[in-house]
């Protein structure tokens, strides 16, 4: 049974068809890497799934429910989380406060009125340990290094604990060791969380991917294991036509 299904999904901005008749189906607990040259519509696809952009055609079905018309906060409540390309932590808030915002299982105003303390126990302690930010609990997020900021954002997604998580270039700006560690986290999330990862770092993709989907010009170009896709002549041509800088 599909956890997430995109059916003939499309969006155009003015004359540009950013995504055009895209079909995609993900099983629960699957990790899918989304590849493609610049401008292929990868980030836009994530925008369409999380509700940042509304489609002009097609449908998004999540957990057997048509969520095409839902607003972004409603989709988040359905269990869809998103990591953006640029780090989007709250810079004026401390690490602890950022994680408390991310712990959004009860997002109503009334339930938020009753919460006065962030308990750094259980899940939050685990997550902090995992991303090595335990010592920075009361540091303003704006004062963290770039790498730590990336980790904080991943930690926030772990706190949010969405069943479907969309990652847009999660390892951008990370060192090799950090990238490797991120791969470990992603592999640990497999099975319990469905994930879509947009990534250019092929080394990272090899570490985590089972199935990859290649997009070009807003449409699906190829789908399969990494080896299959790399040998696909259409994929080679798409990358070569775009300068072949990403593969």
């Amino acid at each position: 049974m599909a956890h997430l299904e995109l059916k003939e999904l499309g969006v155009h901005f003015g004359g540009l068809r950013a995504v055009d008749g895209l079909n995609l189906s993900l099983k629960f607990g699957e990790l899918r890497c989304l590849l493609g040259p610049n401008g292929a519509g990868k980030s836009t696809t994530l925008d369409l799934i999380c509700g940042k952009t509304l489609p002009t055609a097609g449908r998004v079905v999540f957990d057997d429910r048509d969520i095409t018309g839902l607003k972004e906060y409603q989709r988040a409540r359905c269990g869809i989380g998103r990591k953006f390309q640029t780090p989007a932590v709250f810079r004026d808030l401390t690490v602890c406060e950022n994680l408390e915002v991310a712990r959004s299982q009860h997002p109503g105003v009334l339930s938020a009125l009753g919460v006065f303390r962030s308990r750094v126990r259980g899940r939050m302690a685990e997550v902090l340990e995992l991303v090595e930010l335990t010592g920075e609990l009361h540091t303003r997020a704006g004062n963290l290094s770039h790498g730590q900021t990336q980790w904080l954002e991943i930690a926030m997604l772990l706190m949010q604990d969405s069943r479907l998580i969309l990652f847009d270039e999660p390892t951008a700006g990370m060192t090799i060791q950090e990238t490797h560690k991120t791969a470990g986290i992603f592999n640990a999330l497999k099975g319990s969380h469905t994930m879509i990862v947009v990534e250019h770092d092929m080394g990272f993709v090899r570490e985590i991917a089972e199935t990859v989907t290649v997009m070009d010009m807003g449409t699906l170009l190829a789908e399969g294991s990494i080896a299959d896709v790399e040998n696909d002549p259409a994929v080679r041509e798409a990358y070569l036509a775009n300068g072949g800088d990403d593969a």
Partner: protein
Amino acid sequence: MNQNFRFDCVGYALFAALVLLAVPWYLSFDGFELNTFARYLALGMVAMALALSWGYAGILNLGQAATFGIGAYIMAMHLKLGASAANPGGLPDFMGWTNVETLPWFWVPFHSLTVTLLAGVLLPAAVAGVIGTFMFRGRITGVFVAIITLALLVAIQLVFVEYQMYTGGQNGLTGLAPLVLAGWTADPYSTAFYYFVAGCLLVATAACVALTRSKVGLILRAIKENPDRVRFFGYHVSSFETVVFCISAMIAGWAGMLYVLVLEFASPTYMGVPFSLAIVIWCAVGGRNSLVAAALGGIVVNILEGRLSDLFVEGWTLFLGVTFILVVLFMPDGLFGVFRRIATRLHERLRRHRNSTGKALPTGAGAVPARAGEQGGQ
């Protein structure tokens, strides 16, 4: 979070001590002098209400005086009815002059004190709720919120001035009866009355501090920084914004009711643009990021106004304007920001001092220089 909480508590305790002990003692518990201060406290309260929406949620409400004025008029209507009981039909005097025959329906409920007290906070909240729902659902932010609230303020004031037969028009509502609350007659020139106003201010401030310390306050700060990111965590941003906007309006309405009790009349100038902008200035001078500081800002600026406007009748407004410009240019977080920076710097210097004295000591186990350093710091 905990350190900030302690900071808040200390600030609040000092504020309470100032309002409850220092001021009355300084004025030797003189009712007439305290009446002036009760007025400053009511104004401090509305500045505090603005800090709640402006400082914490980034909603610059230039129409804060509208909700303040609505609260003021509601209280004044009740007191006016009390003073008009002996008139034919219980009709307020100004209605007789403008040929109104019977008491309008919307005046009738204000015979009741309970209705008055409830309406004084709930009606401003309802007005803010309607406007807020439209604004925040439409994702209107920043300067546009300021423009809309300012326009609303002007419109509401115009209604109160135009419908003279119902509101007293330009003259406002004067000749009011004193408020009788559970058998206690509020004499605005008594020490007890001052404590009543101070108690209201402290209760409202405590409630708002609690609100900002709860997760709601946290989400509001997050919204102020990046509303889109907050949405992707599943929070309904506009309900948070609307709620804080309503609570701010409630406090403003409450302050308006107190203000009428202090001054014993209601005037459409309470809803004037100059007054509304003055609230913003008090808030900015005190520091919009702290509720207590904003309240103090309102109180201090008004004390200065009281002192200086005696000396320079016209020049005072100029002084206020220059102060505002200087604050915006050099102290974007107001006096609170300056105070906070000094406190942090002192704290750091103290720590560095400890460390250096610790290092300067001759060799020894780690614990020894540390303890010596502590003594040096004292």
